[in-house]
């Protein structure tokens, strides 16, 4: 019995000392951002032909860094319930593509801007906000990551750029669309947005 407890303790100790995913919020965000920077700085991926490989690598990091479903849920908020499960699944996929399309060029355009990790603020035991800044030659852009602890990992569910929350900004737009349209029409607008441009 005693031995069992000792073994159990050791297992628990080992489990909790894995720092990569269970670390505090700031470390989680910082390690993911650093991975992104590694990809962006990789000279082998600089060529135009390697762009797809680069994007694929970034997508993998995104999966580890963000909580897609939570982000979509919070964006739709009360409207989430008016979509059926199939529509919800499609929405999550489409919204992810919309975001990728919107921000990938900005991210790939990264040159040598400095990223400063200022602090984390715990909102509750499972919620926190990590504040960072991008420092360029002419200005500073504050970016906060709102993170949630789920299954031992801190995952991002909202990004606040220059004081504007991404989730809230899209929520207002989707609210506006869903006030006049059915969920299916919203999905159609998103499908077009993903295909277009």
């Amino acid at each position, binding site marked *: 019995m005693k031995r069992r407890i000792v073994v159990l303790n050791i297992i628990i100790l080992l489990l909790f000392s894995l720092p990569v995913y269970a670390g505090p919020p700031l470390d989680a965000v910082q390690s993911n951002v650093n991975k992104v920077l590694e990809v962006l700085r990789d000279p082998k991926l600089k060529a135009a032909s390697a762009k797809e490989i680069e994007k694929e690598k970034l997508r993998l990091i995104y999966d580890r860094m963000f909580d897609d479903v939570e982000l979509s849920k919070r964006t739709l*908020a009360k409207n989430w*319930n008016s979509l059926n499960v199939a529509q919800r699944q499609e929405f*999550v996929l489409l919204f992810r593509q919309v975001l990728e*399309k919107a921000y990938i060029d900005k991210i790939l355009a990264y040159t040598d801007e400095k990223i400063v990790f*200022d602090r984390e603020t715990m909102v509750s035991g499972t919620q926190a906000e990590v*504040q960072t800044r991008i420092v360029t030659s002419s200005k500073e852009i504050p970016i906060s990551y709102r993170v949630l602890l789920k299954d031992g990992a801190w995952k991002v569910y909202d990004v606040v750029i220059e*004081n504007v929350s991404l989730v809230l900004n899209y929520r*207002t737009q989707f*609210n506006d669309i869903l006030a006049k349209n059915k969920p299916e029409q919203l999905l159609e607008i998103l499908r077009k947005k993903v295909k277009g*441009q």
Partner: protein
Amino acid sequence: MVRVMKAFSFPVLLFVFFAVGCAHSPDPAASLAPPAAPPHAEQVLVVSDPVQIPPTPPEMQVKSETKNVDDYGDIEVPEKVSEEAKGEIADPLEPFNRAMYHFNDKLYFWVLKPVAQGYGKVVPEAARVGVSNFFANLAFPIRFVNCLLQANFGGAAEELGRFTINTIWGIGGVLDPASSKDIDLSKQDEDFGQTLGAYGIGQGFYINWPIFGPSSPRDTVGLVGDTLLRPFTYLSPWYAGTGTWTYERVNDTSLNIGDYESLKGAAIDPYVAIRDAYVQYRLKKVNRKGGNIPAEDSGLPKK
């Protein structure tokens, strides 16, 4: 981290102290507590408010555990409703505003952007940053007066220090030595619209002005107040002031080309996206003393 803990636990402890004190001790000591309470109560607010995430209700904890079973299930707790109400603005003038949005959009792509790009090709970036600093330094009376109007005397002093240092050692404000690590006086981004907001005046509704862009009745009044405090408003003849204003816009645009494009590109409905961004941005600035975004986003005391 220690500072974070301290800043958090202090008001929380005080809050607990007052809560318990009020409930259990009807003796005269309790009546002494209220006069001391308001500033502390305010501190509690300052700590929790700017983060803008509603405190998690206990149901949500339970929910997030069940959520893993079925990620795509219904949301049982409409926890973000209050947050939503804050972020919305009435838009009775929507047809007019949308028309003005298209006007401003064309103005940007057809006039402002090409002019700013051409200007940016001729003038090196360092010089344009200098020009931007110079204008920011000239707008010192706006920030100074509005700090005073909001009884933010520390901010006003910081602004006065910045103005003195940057005007004398920053070659009339072209450089910004006051922001350097050694001096570390940060710009207090206050304006008259925020002062009115701090006095409790709400935005009202959304107005999208031609040329001036997103605004509200409150911020329009604010803009007029700020214009009166801007030195080059009093340049003579009148078009010298307008010309300076236009030049400042072109210079700023040259440093921010691509921002509007990406905002517009990311949006599903750019008009609504810009309206919402404006509302969120102004709301946070009003709620924040000194208007400083990066330093005080956490709501923690700065020093």
